[in-house]
């Protein structure tokens, strides 16, 4: 009798069924699903509020003759003021509804993924099933690979269900995403899968390192806490210690305020500060401010690599950066300013350009689970099974 070489498939099948039948997975997944749905529900309400505000603005623009908004420096050629009739608010995007889900995903995903992975190997050792399993014709790596693949499939299923329900909720709430928005939502789903896979890889590594499942879960959450919260939180302080204090701004303003003016009749009491005040610029002071801006930019250029290094192992940070370029949770408050005579068309970068801008984050999001899985794999292959 020879092996049918289907050891990997056999393990994947068994592990997949174990996951979806596991009481703890079902409970945590239901909580995950409910909280995701609740987050989306909150996002949908925010979307509708933003839509109402948008409609209100449109009505006001149609009604208003000339309302001006003060700007700190103003656009080129129009210092200090923008006419509200020239400010075109943007219709809220369906992606805005995912704002809370985007914030909740790293926390809920970490819990779900750790629950799935923390005892995958440690339980086999505790229950002495690993030796029984290895006495049959399978390669040792098929065990850990099979568990990892089954975990990935379950995560895809979980995220797929979550996003399926989310889309259904959007449609029920009369929010129909455009094709572009739909692509962004799909990409958000994919990076959510990778985020959860990262946490799952940490949990799997922990289950290999510890024979006891209690220690394994503590270690997994500890690692996630350190790389996702503690390191990014201390990064600015550490960077400032390394680079030195930030440049101080000049002690005076380069804008010379004009004498107080009398508001136009009928414009008081409107939302926003609407007045005719215009600032004058002191050229010498402005030069000092420009110098400060250059120093500040140079300072932040030195700070950034340090803070990025601290957050390099944080899947949540990369997930957040990529979500931002995908406009997840955005598009509810932005407006576009159209300046008369300024006819240079501003092209919205396409999705590939946007993703290219965060290619480092995308790469890191793939590399992080690979690192933790590699540690788990190497350790598992050397595990003493006596």
């Amino acid at each position, binding site marked *: 009798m020879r092996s049918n070489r289907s050891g990997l498939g056999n393990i994947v099948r068994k592990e997949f069924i174990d996951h979806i039948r596991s009481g703890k997975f079902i409970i945590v997944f239901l909580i995950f699903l409910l909280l995701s749905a609740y987050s989306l529900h909150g996002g949908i309400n925010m979307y509708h509020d933003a839509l109402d505000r948008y409609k209100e603005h449109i009505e006001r623009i149609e009604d208003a003759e000339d309302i001006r908004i003060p700007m700190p420096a103003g656009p080129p050629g129009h210092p200090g003021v923008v006419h509200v009739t020239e400010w075109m608010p943007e219709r809220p995007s369906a992606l805005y509804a995912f704002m809370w889900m985007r914030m909740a995903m790293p926390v809920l995903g970490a819990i779900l993924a750790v629950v799935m992975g923390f005892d995958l190997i440690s339980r086999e050792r505790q229950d002495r099933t690993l*030796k029984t399993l290895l006495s049959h014709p399978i390669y040792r790596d098929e065990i850990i690979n099979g568990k990892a693949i089954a975990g990935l499939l379950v995560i895809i299923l979980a995220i797929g269900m979550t996003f399926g329900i989310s889309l259904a909720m959007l449609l029920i709430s009369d929010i129909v995403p455009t094709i572009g928005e739909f692509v962004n939502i799909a990409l958000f789903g994919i990076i959510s899968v990778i985020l959860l896979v990262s946490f799952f890889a940490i949990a799997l590594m922990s289950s290999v390192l510890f024979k006891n499942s209690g220690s394994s879960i503590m270690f997994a959450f500890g690692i996630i806490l350190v790389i996702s919260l503690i390191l990014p939180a201390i990064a600015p302080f550490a960077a400032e210690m390394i680079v030195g204090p930030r440049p101080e701004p000049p002690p005076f303003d380069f804008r010379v305020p004009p004498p107080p003016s009398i508001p136009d009749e009928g414009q008081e009491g409107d939302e926003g500060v609407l007045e005719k005040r215009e600032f004058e610029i002191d050229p010498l002071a402005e030069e000092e401010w420009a110098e400060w801006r250059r120093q500040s930019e140079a300072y932040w250029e030195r700070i950034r690599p340090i803070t990025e290094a601290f957050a390099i192992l944080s899947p949540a940070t990369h997930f957040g950066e990529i979500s931002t370029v995908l406009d997840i949770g955005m598009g509810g408050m932005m407006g576009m300013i159209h300046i008369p005579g300024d006819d240079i068309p501003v092209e919205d970068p396409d999705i590939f350009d946007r993703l290219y801008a965060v290619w480092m984050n995308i790469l890191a999001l793939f590399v992080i689970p690979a690192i933790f899985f590699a540690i788990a794999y190497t350790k598992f292959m050397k595990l003493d099974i006596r």
Partner: protein
Amino acid sequence: MRYMIRTENLTKNYNGVKAVDGLNLEVEEGDIFGFLGPNGAGKSTTILMLVGMIEPTHGKCFVNDIEVSKDPLSVKNIIGYLPEDIGFYSNMTAAENLNYFAGFYKIEKSARQKKIEEVLELVNLGGVTKKAGQFSRGMTQRLGMAQALINDPKILFLDEPTANLDPESVFQYRNLVKRLSDEGKTIFIVSHILPEVSNVCKTTGIIKEGRLIAKGTIDELKREFSGMGEDQKQMIIEAFDPIPDLTHSDILKIEYSEDRKRVVIESTSDIREDISGILFEKHIRMKGMKMHEPTLEEAFLSIYKE
């Protein structure tokens, strides 16, 4: 003569300590081989190398002429292994556990189901539907025997197979081992329970500090290590009255107790009839007379005293 199991200078070091030290061993096809030794002697390490679960530091081992470390999967396909501390998936029934393990072999689905039922019947677990997590240790051990038989192996490795069994299960186990041997399977049993080995094994090897120090049939070991030759007999006579000096041409050695009511005779033949005649003539009232067979325990203890 074909050796199904063969080791050549097999050695395993753990952190510089030799758990198995230059082991040379052969087990013939169809044999029931008992591998004896106290805890820590290197028995389980040897079996783990033979079943391809750990690699030797030096030396080689062959199962059915396949070098285990070079092709462990081929070896695992033709062997069954019952580990000492076997465990099963607690959320699955006995049949589900076996179905999972059977999935690693090329067995047709219909044949697989039939085989599962057959091996469960063999170990008296047929019809048991409760989850393995609710099994007693004895039931788990029997399920372990079933999983070792799921691929109809040529060679069976059993590590302390009766450790958790009740007397009835031990009896059934012995019958099963004999039946499997009759079918032509080679069985390698690791144990420190001497009666178990002497009851079922045809040949035995004794390991001490990782080295094989004795090997042979049970009778050969008993004789060799009890200090008695192949044709020697030993008799023990007990009487109510002091026993006078006994003489017989076949007597090699005779030892009297202090009160002379007990005597141990070593002779070249069975002379019980002659001795009872002598004692009857001298009006000695006998309490008992028996032949003493050397035991494996005596042989084992003798080896370990050396």
